[in-house]
Every structure is written in structure tokens, then in C-alpha cells.
């Protein structure tokens, strides 16, 4: 079991890795939205409200006028993944911020290519090597692309959390969330779990990835009654992992299911022990996103990716 002292050391290490711009990079000094958001979530319990507000203000400054966040600085490419991660972080740290609403609106307005009938027609008639239902879609990594599992699942988490807080009470939100649920279930690999985007290509079944499966399972928490979600959770429980990044996501996802399956608790404890050993290797936590996720997975604080928001 990771000791409090070890967790403190990891937290201190993450705090020290802040770039001169007061935010976080994957590594080095170039600020990026993903490591910044995960770092803020990981450090939030050890920071006072004023400091958190300062960080939130800096994060908000990176938001573009159309509500999206870029992957890196303002010149960088617009990223739906970064937008979903940023919105979810703000929901956790500063839910009353007006940028949450503009970010949510940007996510709702961002439609993938399958949203257009011509693309759906193409997938149904000419491009049939990939087994998917193009009528079920979510979000791509960047605007104007097709849906992928990880950005869809993270957008789903952000939207579900915002729905429960009644930020954007609209029919469009419900429609997009329902579509995203359907898309994830449609793209599930045979036997459970998720690959990057597809389940079967050229009649060959693809193998699931632990990180993609974890984020998808976290986003589908309210659909545990469905056999697809149960099957994927079983796959995730059995998946062995030698990487801190995937293991941290696995723990965070499993934490949302502790109340529905008795074998989840022991699996989390086992995974935590494994993760505690892995983070002692510097190469495993060279990336700040991984370090931050590891802290979130190892500490007992409320899970910022859980759909059941703590009161």
C-alpha cells in the first residue's frame, strides 16, 4: 500500500514540475491543456482556494472565443479532448465559472462527420470495411473528424456531470448524451472493452485498450444494467497492466463501480499496490499527465471522473 509519505512526495514532485507559465506541460516547459487539468485535479486537495482560483483563471485564459480549448497554447490546434477535459476540470474546481457553459455549448455544437447524411450514406454503402453504425456518433479528437472512443467518453463524462448539476438543461444535451452512449456501445470490441475507435475492421476483431476501456466504462456508469457495460467491466477487472498511465485510469474507472460488484474493491486494492510500485520508476511518471493521474488513483479523494458527484 502506498504510504501517505510517498503520496506527498509524488504531489510535491508534480507541483515542482510546473512550467514558468504556471501551468503544466507533458514534459518540459510547453504548456498543454491535458496535463494542466489533471495536475490541477491532483493538487486541488493540497491547495488553498485562492491558489486554485489563480490556476483556474490561467486555464480559462487559454479558452478560445468559440468556447473550445486548444491542445497547447492559443496557436495550437483546437482539441475536443482538451475541451472536454478542461470543462470537466472546471466543473470540479469552479463550477460557477461562465467558461463552463461556453465550453459545454462548444462541445454540444461540435458534430463529427457522421452527423451529416452524406457521410452516413457513404459508410452504409461504399465504405463498409469497418463495422459501425454511423448513425451513432460522439466526438472526434479535433473538430471536423469522425468519432473516437476516448474523446467521446471524456465529453460524455463532462456532459453527464454538467447535466446532474443542471448547467445546460436542454434537449440537445440529452440527445448528444444518448447518441454518445449508443456510439460507445456500438463500438465495443467483441468480448468487451474498447479499442481506439472500432471493434471489427476487415472482419478482424480488434483488441481492447485498457485506457480507452477505462474512460468508456467511467462514462457509462449509469448504464451498468446493460450487458455490454458489465462485460467490459469484467474485461477491465481481468486486464493485466505494466504501465502507470493505464493502471491509473483503470483504478479511477473501477472506483465508480465499487457499490455494484463485490470483486471491484479487492481489484482496486491490488491495482493500487501495483501502481504504488510502478510510480517508483522515474520512466513511468516522466509524463505529467501520468503522474497526476497516478496521484488521483492512489489518494482517497473524490474521483473527478465519477458521474456520481460528491455533495
Amino acid at each position, binding site marked *: 500500500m502506498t504510504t501517505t509519505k510517498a503520496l506527498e512526495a509524488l504531489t510535491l514532485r508534480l507541483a515542482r514540475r510546473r512550467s514558468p507559465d504556471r501551468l503544466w506541460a*507533458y514534459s518540459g516547459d510547453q504548456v498543454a491543456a491535458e496535463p494542466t487539468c489533471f495536475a490541477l485535479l491532483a493538487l486541488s486537495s493540497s491547495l488553498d482556494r485562492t491558489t486554485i482560483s489563480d490556476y483556474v483563471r490561467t486555464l480559462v485564459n487559454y479558452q478560445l472565443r468559440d468556447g473550445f480549448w486548444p491542445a497547447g497554447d492559443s496557436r*495550437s490546434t483546437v482539441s475536443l479532448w482538451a475541451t472536454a477535459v478542461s470543462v470537466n476540470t472546471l466543473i470540479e474546481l469552479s463550477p460557477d465559472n461562465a467558461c463552463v457553459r461556453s465550453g459545454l455549448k462548444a462541445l454540444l455544437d461540435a458534430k463529427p*462527420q457522421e452527423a451529416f447524411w452524406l457521410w452516413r450514406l457513404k459508410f452504409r454503402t461504399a465504405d463498409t*470495411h469497418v463495422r459501425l453504425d454511423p448513425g451513432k456518433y460522439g466526438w*472526434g*479528437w*479535433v473538430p471536423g473528424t469522425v468519432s473516437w472512443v476516448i474523446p467521446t467518453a471524456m465529453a460524455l463524462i463532462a456532459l453527464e456531470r454538467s447535466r446532474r448539476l443542471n448547467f445546460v438543461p436542454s434537449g440537445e444535451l440529452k440527445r448528444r448524451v444518448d447518441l454518445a452512449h449508443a456510439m460507445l456501445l456500438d463500438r465495443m470490441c467483441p468480448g468487451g472493452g474498447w479499442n481506439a475507435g472500432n471493434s471489427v475492421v476487415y472482419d478482424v476483431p480488434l483488441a481492447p485498450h485498457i485506457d480507452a476501456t477505462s474512460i468508456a466504462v467511467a462514462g457509462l456508469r449509469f448504464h451498468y444494467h446493460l450487458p455490454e457495460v458489465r462485460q467490459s467491466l469484467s474485461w477491465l477487472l481481468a486486464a493485466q*497492466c505494466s504501465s502507470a*498511465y493505464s493502471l491509473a485510469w483503470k483504478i479511477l474507472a473501477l472506483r465508480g463501480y465499487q457499490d455494484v460488484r463485490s470483486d471491484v474493491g479487492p481489484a482496486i486494492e491490488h491495482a493500487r499496490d501495483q501502481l504504488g510500485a510502478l510510480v517508483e520508476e522515474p520512466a513511468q511518471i516522466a*509524463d505529467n499527465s501520468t503522474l497526476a493521474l497516478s496521484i488521483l488513483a492512489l489518494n482517497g479523494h473524490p474521483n473527478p471522473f465519477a458521474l456520481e458527484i460528491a455533495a
Partner: protein
Amino acid sequence: MKQLLNRRLFSAALLAGTGALAVQRMRTSGLVPDRRKPQSRVAILHVVSYAASLEARIADGLRLFGLDLRGKTVLLKPNLVEYIPGAEVNTSPLLVGAAAGAFLAMGAAKVVVGEGPGHQRDTYLVIAENGLEEQLRERRLEFVDLNRDEIIQVPLKTRFTGMETLWFPRTVLTADFIVPMPKVKTHHFAGVTLSMKNMFGVIPGAAYGWPKKRTALERYRSQHSRHQRGPADRFRHRGRHRGHGGEWPAAWTAPAARAGCAFRRSGRRGLHLHAVDGFESLAGSTFGASCSIPRKRRNRTN
């Protein structure tokens, strides 16, 4: 009702089509001169296994080209997709380690291994399960996750991709000598994948996603297939993309190759040498295609 196709339009279309076919025929028959540069020098080195003698064998091959690597930083770019037990889809870690040793023996100041897998976000998991992490540790080599490296915006010299700029990892742009190390594989659409497709891995996922679709298909705004396939791929045009020497038609591996071509067109440091891992190859890819694969290792230069 308005007539959609009149006689004049039909004749013009017929003439244009016949002309295009005639030009294509003349090109393939040699009547139209090929203005491409002569082919690159190629060395094919025979080995019997990924064994301890590999490093010396590679060093022998490198010496054939008279490279001056003294004091230079060499970036090795292996092809790491994901770990699939029993499937040879990644460049052998033993080959990467041996190449690093050979380059250091030739006077390189530093050898860095860099890769940005296209579909798998967990780069560490790929290098750990593939066995590359062990090689890196044993040989004390630095590894850079090109998906998450610092990025620099580079204006492109041409607009074939429909993009004016591309973001590239700093490690790639600052290396003195870049060595793509593709794994020879059959490809469901291209037939075979080699260096240009391997260079797709230098496109940073942090900017373009996993997979890096925008860069691959921006020109056609089609990002429709999960396997880097666009309308242009239907044409195996032996085009003007000479990013890797010209023996293999670069556009075979389009549009993934377009990213590599774009890198070339960015006017930055070129791809200096390609070490192709073809010893144990994947004949009959996981996506159902098949073609004969050379069971040899090729080293080639531009």
C-alpha cells in the same frame, strides 16, 4: 427536364479519359521519360537472427555509406504500433538497440529513440511490452514520446495536404540525423508499408489526436476510415513524392505517407537513412491483405 449529359459534354469526357489513359500508358511503357532522380543507394544485409552479432553487422552496413556522424545527434524512429503477442508488427527492439550501438560506435554524440504510436495513447505500455524499454535501460538510451514532445509549428513548402503549417516534435526538428526504422508489413490497402508510413509517427498526437487523422486527410476533409485511408489511396500513383528514395512508390502508403511527405516538404532536415526491419515480417496483415514479403534486412540511404 434539363438534359444532364449532352453529346458535346460526352465527347469531351471521352476524349479527356482516353488522353489520361494514353499518358498513363506511355509513362509505364517508358515512352515518357521519368525525371525522377536516380535511385538511392541500397544495402541489403543478410543475417540469420536477431542475435548478438547484429550490432557489428549494422556497423558494417553503415560503413558502406561513408557517413560522418561524429558529434551528431541521431534520432532512431522505430515503428511501434501496439503489442500483439505473436504478431510481428513492431520494429524489433534488438534491432533498435543494435542500431544505437552501431551509431555510437561510429562517433555519434548521442542516440535518441523516438516514436509516437498512432492508435495507442499509452506509449510506455507499448515500449514496455514490446521489449524496447529493456533495451533502452540496458544501453542507457533516451526515449522521447513524440506524441507528447514539445512541438514547433513549421510552415510547409507546398499545399498538397491543404494545410499551411504542421506541428512537429522538437526532438525531430533538432536531430542532426534521422533514421526511420520501419517494420516491413503487408498492408490491407497499400500492399506494403515502409519508411514514409513509418514517418507518420512523428506527427504529435497531442496536437492531432490518436490517431492523427487531421494531418492524414486534411486535403480531402474525409477522415472517414480508422485506418488512414482516403480517396487518394485508391490510386497507387507512382508520384513525385521522393521522400524515401524512389524505389517504392511513396503514395502507396498515402495518406499516412502524406504526413511524412509533409515533413519532407517542410524543408527541415531530411530523412537521412532508412533501416528497414524485414527479417521477421508480417505477411498477411491483421487486416486481411497479403503479398510476398522480402525476408531480408534492407539499409538504404537518400
